[in-house]
Every structure is written in C-alpha cells, then in structure tokens.
C-alpha cells in the first residue's frame, strides 16, 4: 500500500479488482454488455422502420417519424430514463415489475433501461439508416426493377443490403457510445458495472481504485467492439470486391453524443 501525504492508492486492491473481479462486478459487466447488445439490435430494427417511414408517401407517417426523432434526440438520455422508470410509475401509468422467463428473472429497472436505450437509439439509427438508403445510387433500384422486381422486392434484395455498408461505421460509433451510456442506468438502480463500482466504493472507500478498474473495463469493451467492427467492415468490403482500407482508429474515440447533449445533432 502506497500512502503518502495527499496520495492514497491501494495497489493490491486495484490489481485484485482488475484481475479477479468479484462476482457482483462480473454480473454488472454482463448487464452492461447485454443491455447494450439487446438495445442496439432492437434499435436497429425500429430504426429501419423509422427510416422507411421517413420515405413514406403519406405525409402523416413522415411527420410522426420526424417528430419522434426530434423528441428523442432533443432530450437527455438521463432524463428519459428517469421519465420512463420513475415518471410512468409515479403517474400510475406503468410500473415495471420483475419478469420471470424460465430460469431467468429480468428486473423491472433493467426492462425500463433496455426500453429507454432502444427507443433513444432507434431515433439515431433511423437517421443513420435513412442517410444510408439515400446513399445507395438510385440506379440500383431502377436496375433491379428493370429485371422485373417490384419496388419492395428491389428494396429488400438490392438497396437495403447495399445500405448496410454505409450503416456499419456510424452504427459502430453509436454502439460504442451506448455501451458507455448504459452507466446512466445506475440512476434507476440497474446493477450494471458503474453502480456496482459505486457500491464497492462506498463499502471499501477505495474510490479511485474501483472507478479506475471500471474505466479499464469500459475501455476493454469499446476496444473489443472496435476490433469486431473492423472485421465486419473488412468482410463487407471484401463482398464488394474492395481492398481493405487502412483502419481509421480515430472513429473509435469520436464521441457523437454525451449525457448533456441536448442538441439535434448532425
């Protein structure tokens, strides 16, 4: 133990927490990962629906999709979490209760968190997918229709698969941000990595050490994701017959959103 005036760092505690994390910490890590993955997957599906709605011939449908993005992107995620979990319960509209499916129980606050992350991220995915669909050359749709495909089939078989290539880089950025933003779920009591760290801190008073460990685990998650993303991008490029470009590592660190971001964004 190093203990000098003004510096207190428990190296043994730090290394033990880092290399042999408690089962509570590992469960928190798992919650962070699965909330991110589930929310991102659901948000991608919902985002595709929103993107298609933005291209609808019906004005009302376009308007609803636009308003949704406007509200979700114009309010803080932290406030959205509180509104969904505490707000709905307080107003007597809906109280999230534990849900048991077979051997697993999904706590109410986890359901609220996944729902909120999904709804929030879907607004961003909607914009990303909309831009990606617009980036596909309109000649692709026409070529497909000229071989006798209906517009919807051409969309599904020709346009959407090509849009995937334009979706992955910004989706990767968003997923990176989402994994970090799951820490916000601590305010509604989700036992994710940050809340567990906070609890360890208040019991052991090794505040600096445990938050440093948590930071390193978040860094590990985002780094693993950036490697996975690079592999996905390379695979897609190969499918397009394009040689791999040098990986832009900077994309991993660029922050598109923060807790305090209340702007409408790009």
């Amino acid at each position, binding site marked *: 133990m190093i203990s000098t005036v003004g510096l207190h760092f428990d190296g043994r505690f730090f290394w033990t927490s880092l290399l042999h994390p408690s089962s509570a910490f590992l469960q928190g890590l798992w919650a962070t990962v699965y909330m991110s993955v589930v929310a991102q997957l659901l948000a991608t599906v919902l985002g595709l629906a929103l993107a298609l709605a933005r291209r609808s011939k019906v004005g009302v449908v376009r308007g609803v999709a636009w308003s949704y993005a406007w509200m979700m992107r114009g309010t803080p995620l932290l406030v959205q979490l509180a509104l969904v979990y505490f707000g709905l319960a307080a107003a007597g509209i809906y109280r999230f209760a534990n849900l048991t499916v077979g051997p697993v129980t999904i706590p109410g606050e986890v359901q609220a968190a996944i729902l909120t992350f999904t709804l929030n991220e879907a607004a961003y995915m909607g914009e990303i997918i909309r831009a990606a669909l617009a980036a596909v*050359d309109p*000649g*692709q749709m*026409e*070529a*497909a*229709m*000229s*071989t*006798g*495909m*209906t*517009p*919807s*089939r051409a969309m599904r*078989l*020709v346009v959407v*698969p*090509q849009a995937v*290539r334009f979706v992955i880089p910004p989706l990767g950025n968003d997923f990176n941000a989402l994994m970090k933003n799951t820490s916000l779920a601590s305010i509604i009591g989700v036992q994710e990595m940050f809340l567990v760290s906070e609890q360890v801190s208040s019991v052991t008073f090794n505040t600096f050490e445990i938050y440093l460990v948590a930071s390193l685990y978040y860094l590990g998650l985002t780094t693993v994701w950036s490697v996975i993303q690079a592999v996905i991008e390379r695979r*897609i490029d190969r*499918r*397009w*017959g*394009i040689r791999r470009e040098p990986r832009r590592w900077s994309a991993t660190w660029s922050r598109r959103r923060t807790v305090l971001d209340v702007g409408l964004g790009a």
Partner: protein
Amino acid sequence: MAAPGGSAEGGPDVAVPLDLVVSAVDVHKSFRDVEVLKGVSLDVARGEVVVLIGPSGSGKTTFLRCINHLETVDQGRIYVNGRLVGYRTDRRGRIREERASAIARQRADIGFVFQHFNLYPNRSVLDNVCLGPRKVRRVSRDEAERAGRALLRRVGLGSKIDAHPAQLSGGQKQRVAIARALAMQPKLILFDEPTSALDPEMIGEVLTVIRDLASEGMTMVVVSHEMGFAREVADQVVMMDDGAIVEKGRPAELFDRPAHERTRAFLAKIL
C-alpha cells in the same frame, strides 16, 4: 406518321399487329411544366433494331424509360407485345396506373441496359446475372447459375464469373449488364447510350455483343451515336430533337440524304 393498330383515342385493347414489339402512340411527358416528349410515335417490329439519335436533352432517355415504365406517361400509349405498358382501364373505362406487381411482370420481359451499367456492386458477376431469374422467375439456383455461366461465356466473360464489378473494366461491366438483361429472356432490350461512358478502346467489345444479338434476331432500341454501328446494325434510325421525332428511315437514307436541316446539322456535329 401512322398510329399502329388504331388511333390514340382507341381503347387499350385495340389490336396491335402481332409482329410489332413496341408500338408507341403520341407519347407526351412533362417534368413539372416542361414538356420533354411532345407526341412521340414509334413502331418497332419483331427482330428489328432501332437506333435513336439526337442532341443531348432531346428526350431520348426519357422516351426509352417510358417504354418500360420507369417514367410515367402523361398522354398517349405505349404497347409492348400488344399489351399497354404500365396502365389498365378500369370498369368505367378510365385509364389507371397498373399495380406494382403487374408493372414488374411487364418489365421482366423488357431488358434495360444503362449508360452507367448499374451493376450490383455487392454481388459477384454471376450473382448479378442470376438474381433476376432466381427471384423473379423462380428458377432454381443451380439452373440460374448454369444459364448465367453460359451467358457470361457468350459475352466473353467466362473467366470473370466470380469477380466483383469493382474489379472489371467499363467494357466488361457493360457486357455483364447485357448478360444480366439477357438472363431474363426478354422479348425486347432497351439500351441507353451503352458505350458513352466507356474509354474508346472498350467501345468495340460492347458493340460486338449488341451486333451479335441483332444477328440472332433480338428486338432492340438503342440510343447511340456510334454511326458506324448504326449504319451496320440498324434497320431504322430515328432522329429526335426537342421532344419529337424529326425524321426516321433506313440508315443509308438518313445518314446520306437527311431530309431535315436539323438532322443535317446534328450529323455534321457528331461526325
């Protein structure tokens, strides 16, 4: 010029002579308030090759796109194989746009080759050719691939079957696009300036493929300013200007003794 199979005000079920693959009658088309087709009528007989020429902006592309209903028509009718393209008459006798599935079925029989190829960049050469037959004609993958390979060999690309469009030259891409159109076994192929995006040394290989199709009796409408090709392959050359057909005739007539000053001026410019 004579409107085939009856006048423009005849019903859509009006008899179109069986040997006419395309019969366009008084086609009008505007974008916003600009009229870009001002009553175009054209017949294309089975096995005939029509070459469309005319200055840029004269409406050649728009007319071609109307033939497979990539553009709607404001007035007039287009029949392909005796069927009104893109429209039907409802019970009250009014003309309405066809349902998407019916339009798609009509397009399946009409090949279209684009100036910029529009190959699917995320699919191999063979998949580009096989997608339509598999998904539209419901041909099995094996059968579609067998036919696709044969077609690619026929356009001289037997060695590029597994390549990606990004790895091909412009001339090779356009030959894949032609094979993709042929895979649907169309009764008509429309070509919109198929060689104008190509480097000069690649124009020949594409024209050779089109020439071969002509000799096999394929019905084609080709927008092209390759005069040597038109002279050799065209049964009919059609000169368009300002949204209308100025004149048409056999290539020798039209090129050597143009009847109109505008044709003469245009030919002088491109030769």
